């Protein structure tokens, strides 16, 4: 059996090297789409082969011995032990192998660390449970969370077959778009707890930590869509905050930048118009599903002991300004949504919670009111303590 296992192991390891793995039963690390990811892959293969070689030698010796040096075959134990010469040999050889590994590893490490001379910078902020992207060069700014189809299918007992959802758990509403052949510097931080930003095809992951700014860089040569996930446990929806990076040719990227700017302008215009209650409710339902339902639940029932119910909540059915203040500035585990949502989204979701989920207060708030709130009073963390539930 030991031999069979050994055989199986070496066969599969060979299949790794030959790259014959099928798509579904993926076996090996991805080579990725950057020079760095290729270097990492090469390092990985180098060390894998070193391990295979050492493994074959050690296990080969051991199984030869197990087969031949057994009492049932009448083998008599020789009583040799202690040999300084042998001990020195099997200390020196591994040391030399390690030095051989450390040299290429150091080179790659230094390459990865060099964030100098970047052509553009993107700030990535981890939130429970979404990503915020800020293009520091052109002001584009948006949040990226799990797409709706995956979000519906992933609920406990949803009855939706994950296999029927394209890119289940690996698709987002707003992908990060980057140009190819550009050195992009990423700045990483987090708003609440630690997260980790990982796209395997780029060859690395980096933790996003509150109060810290971490750096990393990439240079994608091939246009395409690259998917990844949060890699550091960040609470209950850790498994549901994917990352999608779309690398585009420069022309397409420029067009995307223009469309984003136009979209942001249109969003601003929307905030100035007078919204009907029905319009607010319709938009609020979507905003609620994307931002609130993961804690307060789709029906507003909350989760006992962890997240308060919104249905019948004294905050939601009480003074509207107090509710706006709490959502705007956050409180305890409740994130501050003031900067996360647009004026329109903010007004819509406030209106929605007051008139749906079993509540029927009957009032509403206009995006314009939120806009004036934003311009007059920037979020002030210190006031959080005064909020009453």
């Amino acid at each position, binding site marked *: *059996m030991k031999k069979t296992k050994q055989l199986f192991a070496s066969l599969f390891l060979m299949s790794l090297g030959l790259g014959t793995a099928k798509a*579904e*039963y*993926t*076996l*090996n*690390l991805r080579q990725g789409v950057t020079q760095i990811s290729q270097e990492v892959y090469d*390092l990985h293969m180098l060390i894998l082969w070193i*391990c295979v070689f050492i493994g074959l030698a*050690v*296990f080969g010796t*051991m199984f030869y*011995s*197990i087969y031949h*040096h*057994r*009492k049932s075959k009448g*083998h008599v*134990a*020789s009583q040799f*032990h*202690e*040999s300084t010469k*042998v001990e020195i040999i*099997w*200390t020196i050889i*591994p*040391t030399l192998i*390690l030095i051989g*590994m450390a040299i290429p590893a*150091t080179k790659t*490490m230094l390459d*990865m*660390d060099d964030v100098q001379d970047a052509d553009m910078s993107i700030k990535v902020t981890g939130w429970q449970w979404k990503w915020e992207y800020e293009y520091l060069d052109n002001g584009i700014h948006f949040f990226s969370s799990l797409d709706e189809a995956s979000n519906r299918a*992933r609920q406990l*007992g949803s009855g939706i077959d994950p296999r029927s959802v394209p*890119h*289940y758990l*690996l698709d987002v509403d707003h992908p990060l778009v980057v140009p190819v052949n550009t050195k992009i510097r990423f700045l*990483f931080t987090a708003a*609440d707890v*630690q997260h980790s930003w990982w796209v*395997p095809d780029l060859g*690395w*992951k*980096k933790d996003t*930590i*509150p*109060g*810290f700014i*971490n750096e990393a860089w990439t240079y994608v040569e091939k246009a395409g869509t690259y998917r*990844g*996930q949060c*890699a550091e*446990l960040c*609470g209950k*929806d*850790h*498994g*549901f905050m994917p990352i999608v990076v779309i690398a585009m040719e420069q022309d397409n990227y420029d067009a995307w930048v223009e469309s984003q700017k136009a979209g942001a302008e249109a969003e601003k215009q929307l905030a100035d118009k007078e919204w009907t209650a029905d319009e607010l409710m319709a938009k609020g339902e979507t905003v609620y599903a994307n931002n609130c339902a993961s804690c307060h639940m789709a029906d507003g029932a909350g989760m006992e002991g962890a997240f308060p119910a919104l249905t019948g909540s004294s905050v939601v059915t009480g003074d509207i300004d107090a509710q706006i203040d709490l959502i705007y500035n956050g409180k305890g585990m409740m994130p501050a949504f003031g900067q996360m949502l647009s004026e329109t989204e903010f007004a819509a979701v406030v209106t929605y919670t007051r008139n749906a989920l079993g509540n029927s207060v009957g009032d509403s708030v206009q995006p314009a009111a939120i806009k004036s709130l934003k311009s007059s009073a920037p979020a002030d963390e210190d006031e959080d303590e005064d909020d009453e539930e």
Partner: protein
Amino acid sequence: MSAVVAEHDDHHDHGPEKGLLRWIITTNHKDIGTLYLVFSLAMFFLGGAMALVIRAELFEPGLQFVEPQFFNSMTTMHALIMVFGAVMPAFVGLANWMIPLMIGAPDMALPRMNNMSFWLLVAGALLLASTLFMEGGAPASGWTLYPPLVLQTGAALPFAIFSVHLLGISSIMGAINIIATIFNMRAPGMTLMKMPLFVWTWLITAFLLIAVMPVFAGAVTMLLTDRFFDTSFFNAAGGGDPVLYQHIFWFFGHPEVYVMILPTFGVASTIIPVFARKPLFGYSSMVYATASIAFLSFIVWAHHMFTVGMPIAGELYFMYATMLIAIPTGVKVFNWTATMWKGSMTFETPMLFSIAFVVLFTLGGFTGLMMSVAPSDFQYHDTYFIVAHFHYTLVPASVFILMAAAYFWLPKWTGNMYDEKLGQLHFWLSAISVNVLFFPQHFLGLAGMPRRIPDYAVQFADWNMVSSIGAFVFGFSQLLFLYIVIKTIRGGTGEKVTDEVWEDASKHSLEWTLPSPLPYHTFTTPPKEIPTEHF
């Protein structure tokens, strides 16, 4: 000689107390050893049940059984219970049973403290388990308890922290006792370099425990004050540093994982020579290798944190230092292989488990070497690759060796032989299923599946299903172990074992010179001669 002394000794405590009270007030190292072992086996099944909840949920993509928050509680509690409730206490149990016997001492040096450290362990573990029923659920931030996430724990947080304190005190007491026993109670002629390797590895382990348990206690106390007393040790908004916690935790955590593997090395070095009918190849190099590994364990902690954004000098230093661990670990593996070479081997259950340990621990060592390379670790970190790595070093390594130890010494402890056929069945079921369980997790990690997620993209479905099948076979196979142990205690095969139990075992270590089953009190006078096989 010892019999003569006993006749003149008119203390009333020759035998154990009658009834339940015996187990509560006992100060006898054998009774306390048994308590530890039974308790750890119970915790092994509790932690295993949690693992099966995890593997059941991961059997298929989509959420079928539990909410994500509860899933996170399961991964957290599974780890805490297995580490602090199952593996560590099991080795303390073995230490209690075997160290006095191996060094020719009548008992542990501090028998009352021994009792206390066991019952503190029970209190700590029960407190930890009780958090499952608290408002907001059990801790769900992973066993590393990283802030700020851990500060979002509900009512359970202070209880979990207090239970860590209790478990830590219990471990420190156990460690002090072991050190005091080894330093003061060795038989005449047994110099440090003539101690059995199991005693050596435990001596070093005990120093690791004393060095790092207070560090962990300090870290969780800072969490406590951050949460309840408005300090900001780990709160960046208050001038604190969340990464500081990780440094402190892993300064504890890395030696801590070696606490679970060093005694394993000791047991393997005890069992393999007996069944190879040869002395251990290099006794002194094994001692030095163990000490080197223990020393290195203090200076490599940040390899658990390659992705937190350390300066390049830190990344390189921790990469090089971590690579060094391969050298003494290699020395150990080569030594076991050389011990088997040209032996006269037989393959009873303890030997089978020990050989599987050497092979599968080495596989875990290989993936460890791969992860020491910081640039590659940027890909492996926090994926199923690391889950596969540390489970290889814990389950088919530490747990297999615990099984080997149970089969090896149960006949000595009880005087009854276990059922060899059932033992071998248990071995093959475990050895095959543990690989079906953990080997595919390497592929999942490399393919990009993060750890600690309750649901996954569909391209990970096939290997997860294979892994879950392995998990259930492995889990239920352990019921067979329980059955074999109970059967052995109740009389086993009916065959009465000799004092030596295993052929020529008395050449290797002192316990085999004593009668089987072991009397309640042993070595009331020290042995005159000690085995010299390995020197």
